[in-house]
């Protein structure tokens, strides 16, 4: 009874789920979050609950009951929190952060507890920020166009100042790239669908990127191991950006030059791409955060190479939207290897 009172006074919604995937207990915060007045509106099979309150991903896709956090937790695993959307009884959408874990019982049938936290305000804030970033980036492009065009025209008209004007142009190009980064992240969130997907060979794409990066950074030795055909169906432009930013990072974080290896191989229905450098590596206490938006593992350290820290977060999101994964290994002073996979196109 004391335990129930505790659960009831929690600020987050709680669902207790039994081995048959039925909600057997809930609390006041959950009722408020869903806009219902009686526990009877919540208790019962969790699949029915999910249908009634239209549980779906942030992108709007329905979630399989087997993938519900509580159902996965029944299998004994802790489910890290993720965001989902629910339909409140009055019809508006509620963004929730969901986490679940198995309840350590005294040998009885398994139970799982799911915790729902209302994150609508934070989500709205993120949307506003993305719209702002997108607008700001657009507004920056016209002045950049004016400055760049003047610099190029003057370069033709006044050859004696060519060197200074080349610097102006280089800096404008740098600003343009930052603007493009801002647009890419905000666009990913505003335009969930992404670009068109078409079949292509990932190995050839990697070779193109390697070729381009060799020209851009002569002090690094960019090695691409010959790869077998790796056909994928994907948004070529975005995957190209992913590989490019991984190679850029490898170059940026190995300031002493040296080898950057790019490997493409395929196995078990997926293509695996790895980018390995022998540079600074990422400090262990910072490794957990490097996929966070805007996080820069080297910020404030002696080896702070600038940049907005957007691309890893964006890259991983792009890969995940294609049904792939991204991860890394890193040892300070030895180097880092970043990996990602994409599903191999079924050979038909």
């Amino acid at each position, binding site marked *: 009874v004391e335990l129930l009172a505790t659960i009831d006074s929690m600020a987050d919604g709680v669902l207790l789920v039994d081995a048959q995937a039925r909600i057997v207990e809930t609390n006041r915060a959950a009722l408020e979050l869903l806009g219902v007045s009686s526990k009877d509106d919540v208790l019962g099979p969790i699949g029915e609950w999910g249908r009634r309150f239209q549980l779906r991903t942030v992108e709007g896709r329905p979630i399989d009951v087997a993938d519900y956090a509580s159902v996965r937790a029944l299998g004994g695993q802790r489910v890290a929190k993720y965001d989902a959307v629910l339909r409140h009884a009055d019809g508006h959408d509620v963004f929730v952060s969901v986490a679940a874990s198995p309840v350590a019982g005294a040998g009885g049938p398994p139970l799982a507890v799911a915790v729902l936290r209302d994150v609508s305000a934070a989500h709205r804030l993120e949307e506003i920020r993305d719209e702002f970033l997108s607008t700001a980036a657009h507004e920056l492009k016209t002045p950049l166009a004016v*400055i760049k065009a003047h610099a190029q*025209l003057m370069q033709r008209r006044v050859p004696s100042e060519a060197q200074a004007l080349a610097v102006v142009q280089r800096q404008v190009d740098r600003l343009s790239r930052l603007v493009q980064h801002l647009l890419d992240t905000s666009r990913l969130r505003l335009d969930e669908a992404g670009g068109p997907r078409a079949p292509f060979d990932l190995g050839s794409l990697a070779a193109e990127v390697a070729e381009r990066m060799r020209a851009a950074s002569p002090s690094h030795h960019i090695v691409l191991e010959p790869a077998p055909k790796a056909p994928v169906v994907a948004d070529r432009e975005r995957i190209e950006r992913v590989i490019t930013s991984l190679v850029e990072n490898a170059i940026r974080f190995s300031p002493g030059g040296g080898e950057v290896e790019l490997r493409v191989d395929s196995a078990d229905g997926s293509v695996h791409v790895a980018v390995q450098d022998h540079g600074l590596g990422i400090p262990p206490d910072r490794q957990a955060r490097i996929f966070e938006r805007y996080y820069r593992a080297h910020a404030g350290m002696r080896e702070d190479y600038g940049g907005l820290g957007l691309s890893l977060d964006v890259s991983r999101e792009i890969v995940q939207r294609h049904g792939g994964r991204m991860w890394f290994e890193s040892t300070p002073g030895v180097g880092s290897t970043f990996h990602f996979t994409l599903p191999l196109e079924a050979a038909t």
Partner: protein
Amino acid sequence: VTRAGARPGGILVVEDDPDLLAIMEMILSDAGYDIRTAPDGAVALARVAELMPALIFLDMRMPVMNGWEFAREFRSRHPDACPIVVVTAAEDARRRAEEIGADGWIAKPFDLEDVLGAARRHVGTPPRPAPSAP
């Protein structure tokens, strides 16, 4: 003389930012093209009614009549008139161009060569302005 002053190779630049309009004009005049300008779609429609250009560079976001509205109106009044090249800050310049059935696109910020290349493709090599008779 019909269409007094009409010269093949005349280019109309439609852009609401005065500095960008000025630099586009400088780039193209320097190369020898005959340029007219309009700060928005409404003025541009009046300009093409006076005199049909050989090519239009069209900004998309403009306060009075934007690029979409201009293109729709222009095509309905002058079917099979001159090509349009979209100049846009949008991330997906190509899609913008497809939306209005344009013949090309340039993404801001652009290179001089992007502008000159489009002019060459659609208008040909610049007709060096002959000393015009009064």
